[in-house]
């Protein structure tokens, strides 16, 4: 192995353990403090775990299910499986048993490592349908005292077996690691599947290491960096940032204490490198605004004044542009002292050098806000199939509506139908057991069809407008990009979700979900009493509020010649929040437009038939698994539309 650079993850781990044995690799907030493991300790833990797995029969080519929150030992389990030539298959920890079942069967899982009793219970629930599932290992022994099934093992116990195994067969593991090839499958990530059943995307060591290495080089990440690992381990983003890049660059990953304490933990750790989907940034901003509204008038005034300064020149200063007036620079410095610096501090973002967002479009205002207060937030574009590494925004070349330039080594081209095609070393080997799907998604020239529609602008930046298959045509023949419209609406803090309809119709209509936090606070300040979501959503005042938002979005759309016809004419506010548990959203919170259209057909009919209200009753699933009914008489409102500004300008 010596001589050549490490080309599989196990070899990378051994490399890091050799180079920086005593530097922190993993921290976890547990029992009140940040428990720390060095690279040396991590390598040791992984070895013990790998040998333990081998002892209970885990073999080359086996798939290892991993289910749970971001726990160090679950990350180590990935490495341990890879050491033995197996493939880790992380799954979403909040999925219900039935959802897990599909993947368990599809990936022919024999071994599963899970976090705690809750996950064990889910697996036990579906175990009879997975005859091949032979062993379940759990990290947290609490509550497991009375589980005496022979196939259940505590991770401690397995690691202990592993250590004994290591003493008896000291050569075993190194031999296993030496057998690994860069072209072996390193990880299998299931795509959420906006339509149809999930598919297992197989990525090789080489592909993922290439992707990670290019990101690390791009932003000069190094061992001194810290990242907070709190996104689902089954998501390609977390796998790239918390596993791939950490292994390559040798930086420290930090696991929060629990889902409730992410914000506190973020502030404590103060990461230098940060990754979050837009909705996290959005929620943060909403919280900032809500909390500021309770501040004294003086403070609010100061905040607003300096946010205005930041909006004017903040991102320009961050980009080190020369054309910023001296007066603005002075004001910005003052603002940095009074507002931006403290704000970054309370958000836990003081030390951030680079932050990325991806996974969905981010609102320009939102994006601008973070950049203007001095956080180097950038966008990236990629997908599970491309190891989340297609385009990145280089420092100093940030455009709010583009996703940046192709990563070095990645070829991107636009198909005739507008679809973005990608070819690179960091690409899927194939879909698991789905040669048909693999063939369908990779064209004969080796380009992967991303399924997104987009185009390059004059500076070579890629701009994504929608899913290629969603792009349709209005009855008038104008292009119709529902995601684009929905995103425009969702950029308003009061709107949490929007679903637009308009394909092959003469006008666009929309369902809206209000944001409970934001609108709730708005209502409280106006002394509007309400009993819950359904009640609040149907308030006349709330409709007026949302209508203003819709009209603003319409005004913006009217400026774009291509999308002027997509203005929202009529809308309604749904009586319930769209919910992944009701299959209305994917686990990554993308709307399932087709499913929703089918489920709420009566509402769509009402929107297009000119009715002013419509009764609806819906089945819902509660968190505890029970189900019930929600019903309401939904209002439908007309929004103002605007004549095409682009046309006017031309005229």
């Amino acid at each position: 192995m010596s001589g050549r650079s490490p080309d599989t993850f196990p070899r990378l781990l051994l490399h890091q353990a050799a180079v920086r044995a005593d530097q922190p690799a993993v921290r976890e907030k547990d029992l009140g403090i940040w428990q720390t493991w060095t690279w040396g300790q991590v390598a040791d833990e992984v070895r013990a775990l790998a040998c333990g797995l081998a002892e209970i029969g885990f073999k080359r080519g086996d798939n290892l299910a991993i289910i749970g929150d971001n726990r160090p030992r679950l990350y180590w389990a990935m490495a341990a499986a890879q050491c033995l030539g197996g493939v880790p298959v992380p799954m979403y920890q909040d999925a219900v048993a039935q959802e897990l079942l599909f993947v368990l069967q599809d990936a022919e899982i024999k071994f599963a490592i899970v976090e705690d009793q809750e996950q064990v219970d889910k697996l036990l629930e579906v175990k009879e349908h997975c005859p091949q599932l032979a062993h379940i290992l759990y990290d947290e022994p609490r509550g497991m005292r009375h589980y005496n099934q022979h196939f259940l093992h505590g991770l401690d116990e397995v690691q202990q077996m592993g250590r004994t195994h290591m003493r008896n067969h000291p050569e075993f593991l190194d031999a296993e690691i030496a057998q690994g090839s860069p072209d072996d499958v390193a990880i299998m990530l299931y795509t959420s599947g906006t339509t149809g059943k999930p598919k297992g995307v197989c990525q090789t060591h080489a592909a993922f290491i290439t992707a990670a290495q290019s990101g690390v080089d791009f932003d000069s990440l190094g061992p001194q960096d810290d990242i907070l690992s709190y996104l689902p381990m089954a998501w390609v983003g977390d796998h790239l940032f918390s596993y791939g890049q950490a292994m390559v660059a040798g930086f420290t990953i930090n696991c929060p204490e629990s889902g409730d304490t992410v914000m506190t933990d973020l502030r404590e750790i103060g990461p230098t490198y940060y990754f979050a989907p837009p909705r996290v940034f959005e929620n943060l901003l909403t919280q900032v605004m809500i909390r500021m509204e309770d501040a004294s008038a003086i403070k609010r005034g100061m905040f607003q004044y300096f946010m205005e300064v930041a909006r004017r020149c903040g991102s320009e200063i961050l980009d080190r542009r020369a054309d910023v007036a001296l007066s603005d620079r002075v004001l910005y410095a003052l603002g940095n002292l009074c507002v931006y610096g403290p704000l970054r501090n309370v958000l836990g973002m003081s030390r951030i050098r680079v932050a990325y967002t991806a996974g969905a479009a981010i609102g320009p205002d939102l994006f601008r806000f973070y950049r203007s207060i001095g956080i180097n937030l950038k966008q990236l574009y990629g997908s599970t199939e491309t190891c989340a590494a297609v385009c990145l925004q280089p420092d100093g070349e940030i455009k709010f509506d583009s996703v940046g330039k192709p990563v070095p080594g990645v070829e991107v081209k636009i198909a005739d139908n507008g679809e973005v095609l990608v070819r690179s070393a960091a690409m899927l080997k194939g879909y698991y057991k789905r040669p048909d799907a693999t063939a369908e998604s990779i064209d004969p020239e080796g380009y992967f069809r991303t399924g997104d529609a987009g185009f390059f602008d004059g500076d070579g930046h890629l701009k994504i407008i929608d899913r290629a298959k969603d792009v349709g045509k209005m009855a008038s023949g104008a292009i119709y990009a529902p995601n684009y419209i929905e995103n425009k609406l969702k950029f308003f803090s009061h709107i949490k979700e929007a679903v637009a309809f308009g394909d092959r119709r003469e006008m666009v209509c929309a369902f809206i979900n209000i944001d409970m936090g934001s609108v709730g606070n708005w209502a409280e300040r106006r002394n509007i009493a309400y009993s819950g979501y359904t009640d609040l959503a149907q308030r006349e005042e709330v409709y007026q509020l949302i209508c203003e938002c819709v009209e603003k979005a319409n005004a913006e759309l009217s400026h774009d010649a291509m999308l002027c016809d997509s203005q929202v004419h009529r809308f309604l506010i749904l009586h319930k929040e769209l919910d992944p548990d009701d299959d209305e959203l994917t686990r990554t919170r993308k709307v399932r437009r087709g499913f929703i259209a089918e489920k709420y057909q009566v509402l769509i009919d009402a929107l297009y038939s000119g009715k002013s209200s419509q009764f609806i009753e819906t089945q819902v699933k509660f968190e505890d698994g029970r189900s019930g009914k929600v019903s309401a008489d939904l209002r439908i409102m007309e929004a103002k539309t605007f004549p095409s500004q682009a046309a006017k300008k031309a005229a």
Partner: protein
Amino acid sequence: MLYRDAGQFKDTYAADQQIFPIRQDRIGITLVLLFAFLVVPVIGNQYWLSAILIPFLISALAALGLNILTGYAGQLSLGTAAFMAVGAFAAYNFVLRVPGMPILVSFVLAGIMAALVGIVFGLPSLRIKGFYLAVATLAAQFFVVWALTKFGWFSNFSSSGVISAQTVVILGYPFDTPVRKYLMVLTIVVLMALAAKNMVRSSIGRAWMAVRDMDVAAGVIGIRLMHTKLLAFAVSSFYCGVAGALYAYGYIGTVEPEAFNLDLSFRVLFMIIIGGVGSILGSFFGAAFITFLPILLNTYAEPFAQAIGLQLPAGMVSNLELIIFGALIIFFLIVEPLGLARMWQIAKEKMRLWPFPH
């Protein structure tokens, strides 16, 4: 605003439980101590050192003592001055009567004497609570001053009952100038404050607070109420006793029992109410406040009155002082019962949350 703490994570319990967990606080306290030890002796003149800073430090130590008893253990005492008197006279007598007694040892013994007296007067706390106990400590106040006045032995039969503190010599080095006395007092006060902080953040401190907050529950947990309360009396009196000894040896020089009257007890009580009940830092805030306010009044009331054309009658300022003290006590009890220390804490919290209000 400047109080930024993101990224200051703790990876050991030792780091999490240190006295100042936030880096900025550690830097702040270091600067304050450096200033007090290195800069003040250079820039301070005799008036500042002898008339302001030394009495401030001694008051702070006494307040610290009372705070341990009243603030932490919840036992109201009106006899602080008496324990100081015991300390002052004990130190004097140890030095006087034991040949070769090192002065620092005599301070410790003075503290121990005061602690013993404290335990005796703390005994009623086992049966009685609240006002009844406060009245019992008044008995200590009257009895001790009376005894020190009436029994000539304590003052070595000086005709006026006044004792003159001997020169302080530590390891052959005389502490006879204001700067040296200041440094001696400062060192003792800083070390004792640290020890007090250590006690209140350990199990004994938690036992005191448990007794203060809910004595039945404390008993049920297994805290020995008698032991805990008496220890609070002893430790508190020890601090007051050392403060009394420093009063004699570091500040006034000649002391009469009457100097330790009820008025002084009240002043110390005011220090902890204004500074912060149940706070080590608060004892210093309160001592500073009560020490500086009369000086400010005396310095500025007269010129101010003259400036607006008023002639202040004699005693005006001292009566004004009474009214201001009294009103401040009421003000603090109403507005912020936990005193300046709590206000400081809230301000710090606000700085950490800035620009958010909460």
